[in-house]
C-alpha cells in the first residue's frame, strides 16, 4: 500500500507544490485537497502547507481556519489522523485550536528567510520518529509572524509533557518563547512548526536534505499502523 498524504491548497497557499514534491520523494502519494472540498479523499495524513492563505491580512491562518476542508481536517485530527502544519499551516492549526498558543509578529518586525538550525526535541510523534533524539537539522525558516506565544501555564505544560517537538538552535529567528519552533497536540499526531522541511529535501534546492525525515517518518508510521 502507498500511503496517501493530502496537501491542502487554500487561496494564497504557496508551498503546496513543494510539500507534494517532498511527499513524493519520501515515497508516498501526494493527494491535492482543495480548500472548498468537504471531503478528505481517503487520505492517511494531511499536510497544511506554507503560504499566505487569504493574504493573511487579518491574522495569519485566521480565515483559512474556516475553509470547508478544515472542518474535516479538524474532526479527523481529533480522531487521530496525522496532520503536519508548516508555517502558515502551523498558524492555521493554532487558529483552529488543534494546537495551543499563537504566532505573532516577529520580534524584529521583519520577514526573515534564513537557514536555521533546529533540534528535534521529541521523536515520539508520527512526523519525527525517523530522527534520532536530539538530532540537529538545518532547515529554511521564512516568516513574518513566527513568534510563538502561549501563557506560562501552557508553556510549562508543553515542556512537561514533552510536546515541544522542535527548538531553534544557535539563534532564535523570530523571538519565539523558549526558542520553540514546533509543538504537537496531546497525542503527538498533530504537529506544527514554523521552519520548512519541504524546502530541505534535496541539497540542490535547499540547505540540506534534513527535512525529508518528517515525511519518511509519517510514511513508516502509516505503514506500521496499516
Amino acid at each position, binding site marked *: 500500500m502507498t500511503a496517501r498524504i493530502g496537501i491542502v491548497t487554500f*487561496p*494564497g497557499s*504557496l*508551498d503546496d*507544490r*513543494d510539500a507534494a*514534491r517532498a511527499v513524493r520523494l519520501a515515497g508516498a502519494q501526494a493527494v491535492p485537497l482543495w480548500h472548498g472540498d468537504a471531503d478528505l479523499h481517503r487520505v492517511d495524513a494531511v499536510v497544511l502547507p*506554507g*503560504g*499566505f492563505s*487569504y*493574504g*493573511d*491580512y487579518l491574522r495569519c491562518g485566521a480565515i483559512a481556519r474556516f475553509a470547508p476542508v478544515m472542518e474535516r481536517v479538524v474532526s479527523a485530527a481529533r480522531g487521530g489522523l496525522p496532520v503536519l502544519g508548516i508555517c502558515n499551516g502551523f498558524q492555521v492549526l493554532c487558529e483552529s485550536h488543534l494546537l495551543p498558543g499563537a504566532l505573532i509578529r516577529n520580534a*524584529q518586525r*521583519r*520577514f*526573515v*528567510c*534564513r537557514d536555521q538550525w533546529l533540534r528535534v526535541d521529541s521523536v515520539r510523534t508520527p512526523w519525527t520518529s525517523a530522527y534520532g533524539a536530539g538530532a540537529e537539522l538545518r532547515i*529554511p525558516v*521564512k516568516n*513574518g509572524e513566527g513568534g510563538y506565544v502561549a501563557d506560562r501555564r501552557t508553556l510549562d505544560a508543553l515542556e512537561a509533557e514533552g510536546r515541544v517537538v522542535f527548538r531553534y538552535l544557535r539563534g532564535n529567528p523570530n523571538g519565539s518563547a523558549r526558542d520553540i519552533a514546533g509543538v504537537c497536540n496531546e497525542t503527538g499526531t498533530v504537529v506544527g512548526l514554523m521552519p*520548512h522541511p*519541504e*524546502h530541505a529535501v534535496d541539497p*540542490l*534546492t*535547499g540547505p540540506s536534505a534534513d527535512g525529508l525525515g518528517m515525511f519518511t517518518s509519517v510514511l513508516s508510521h502509516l505503514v506500521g499502523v496499516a
Partner: protein
Amino acid sequence: MTTGTSASALDTVARATNTPDEPQPYAELGLRDDEYDRIRQILGRRPTAAELTMYSVMWSEHCSYKSSKVHLRQFGEKAPASDALLVGIGENAGVVDIGDGWAVTFKIESHNHPSYVEPYQGAATGVGGIVRDILAMGARPVAVLDPLRFGPADAADTRRVLPGVVAGVGGYGNCLGLPNVGGELVFDPSYAGNPLVNALCVGVLKADRIMLAHASGVGNKVILFGARTGRDGIGGVSVLASATFDDSGAPAKRPSVQVGDPFAEKVLIECCLELYDAGLVVGIQDLGGAGLSCATSELASAGEGGMVVDLDRVHLREPSMSAEEILASESQERMCAVVAPEHVAAFFAVCARWDVDARVIGEVTAVSPEEASRGGRLVVTWHGETIVDVPPRTVAHEGPVYQRPFARPADQDALVADDPARLPRPATGAEFRATLLALVASPNLCDKSWVTDQYDRYVQGNTALAQPENAGVIRVDEVSGLGVAVACDGNGRYCRLDPYAGAQLALAEAYRNVASTGARPVAITNCLNFGSPEDPGVMWQFERTVTGLADGCQALGTPVTGGNVSFYNSTGDTAILPTPVVGVLGVLPDVRRRTPMGFGGADGAALLLLGRTRPEFGGSEWAWTVHRHLGGRPPEVDLAAEAALAEVLVAASATGLLAAAHDLSDGGLAQVLVEACLRGEAGARITLPAGADPFVWLFAESAGRALVAVRPDDRAAMADLCGSHGVPWTDLGTVQASSTDLVIDAVLAVPLAELRAAWSGTLPALFEG
C-alpha cells in the same frame, strides 16, 4: 458624469463635434500645443474629455517613449541574429527558447517615483506590475530580482525609504510565492531624492503556448478581470474630473499612490494559468500604467483593429467614478482578456473557482479597409452615449516622437581628466589591512543579507542558486535539470565617466555573473534610469548608453528582448548618475552542474585568476570609499575577452572542472577573495605574482576577470582550456578550508572572523531599530 448638472453635460463625441471651440485643459494633462493639434487633426474635431484622457496618458513619456524611441531603435537594428528569440521587443516581454520545448520570458521595470513617495506600496506595486507583464505572456512567474539604489546610506531619508522599499519588495513578492534570487543594493548621493527601484521578473512557459496582446476574431468578447477599478494613480487626469466635479461642489479624492493587494495577484496568477491551460484565451494584456486606456488601445490595434467597450460594465470600487477616471485608473491586479463567445462561460467558471471577479466589457468589431488604414476603430460608451471614437493605433503607437537635442556635458572633459592616479594609495601592511577592512565594510560592498534575508528565496522549490551567489539559478525542468541563470548589474559611476563604456560594462558584468554559474548567456533586458530628457547633457548620456548597449549586445550575440526607460530622475536640479541596469539571462542544461561562488567545498583547490589586471581605478569603489573621488576613465571594455572568459567558465562548468568561481567587479580581487572565503567559511593563502603591485592587483576593477578554484588534479586541464580560448590566467594560491585566515603573502593577513564582523555589521548598524 455623476454631478448630473447641465453645466457638465456628458462630453460625447456628438457634443465635441458641435462645440469645436470649447477650451480643454490639455496643457494641465501634460500635452503640448502641437500634440493637442495633432489629436484634433487625427480626429477631425476636438477630442472629448474621455479621448483627451486616453491620448494624454498614452502619449506621456512613460507610455509613448517619445524621447527615447529614436534611440531605442538601435536595439532592433543591431540585434544579433538569434534563433532563440521567440518574441522580441514590442510585446509585454521578450520570450527566449531554452530548448526541450521550454521557453523563458523576463523583463525589468522601474517604479522609482512612487517608491520615493510611499516606499512600501511603491516598491510592492512595482513588483506586482512586472509580474503581470510576465503573466501576460502566458508564463508562470518563477523568480524576481530587485536592483535598488538609494542616497547615502547614513542619510536620514535613506532610513525612511530603504526599509520601506525592501519590506515592500519582500511583502509583495513573498506573498506571491516568487523566490527573490538576486538584485543590487547601491548607495550614491545622486539618488538621495530619487531612489531607483527596479524589479525584474522571470517566467517559464511551454514554447508553444505563448500568449500575445491582441484582440483578434470579430465577435470575441473583451473581459476585464481581477481587482475592481478604483481611483488609483489617476494623478493628472483629475484636472478633467475636477472640472466636472466643481459644479456640484463635491471635491473628489484622487490618490496617485496605488496600494497593492498581493493576495489578489496570487489568485490572478493561478486563475490565468488555468485559463491558458484550458485554451480559453485568444489574447491578453495586463493593466499597468494608463490602465484601460492602454489595454484597450493596445489590444485593439494589435488585433482586428476594431473594439467596442461599455464602461458601465466595469466593476468599480467607488461608484461615483467618472468615465475619464475609469479610463485612466491604474488600479492594480487587473487583466484584460479576449475570449471567444463559446468560451465565455468556461472562462467565468475558472474565475469563480478562484474567486476572481470578471466582467465582459466589450467586443471585438470589424473595421472597414478605410478605418483600418486610419488605425482601426475603438468605440467607448458610457451611460448609453459614445464618448470615445478613435483609431486605437494612433493612441497606442502613433504618439509623438522627439529628436531631443543632446550634447556632451560641459564638465565631461574635466571629469575624465581628473585621473585617480593622483590619489594617495596604501603602502604599508597596516594601510593595506585598513583599506581592505574599510572597503568590505562600505555600504556598497558590505554584506547585503539584512536586505536579502527579508526575501523568500526557497518558495517553488526550484532555486539552485540565489543571492549572494553570482547569479540566481532556477530549475525549469525537474527531470532533465534544464534551468536558467539571471543576474542584473549597473554602475552609475562608470556611466557618468563614459556612458558608452559604462553601458557595456553593465552588460559585461551581468554576462560574466551568469557565465560564472556555468550558464551560457543568451539574451538581455534593460532598465534605463536617467535624468530629464529635456537636458541635452542627460540626452547625450542616454544616446551614448543606448548605442553602447546595442553595440555590446551585437558583439556578445545577446539580443535585447525588452526593457523600460525611466526619465526625470533627479535630486533637486541634479540628475542622478546615468544608470542603465542590465539583466542577462543564461541557460544551464543541468542546474546540478551549477558552479557555486564559495570556497566552502573547495579545500585544497588551486586558485587561478582569469583575465588581465590593469591599473584601473576610475569610478572604482576604492576611489569613492576612501577618497570620495569620481573621475578618470572607467575600466577598459574588451567584449571579445569577455566572450572568451565566458566560454571558459561555461565549458569548465560543463566538464566539472570548477569547485568554485566568482567574477570580479566592484572592489576588485580583494573583495572577491573576502566574499568567497566567507561564503562557506574557508581560509585561503594567496601569493601575488613576483613583481606585482599589490595595490593594483588587489583593488583595481579591470573587467573581464574571474577567480576560479580548481582541484589540484584539474589544474592542468583548466590551464589548457584557458590557453585554447586565449584567456590569460595567473596562479594565485590555494583554498585552505581549515584555516581561519585570509592571508596575502607579504601584504596582509586577516582572520575571517574580523572580516565577517566588518563586512556584515554595516547594514544592521544603519537600519536596525
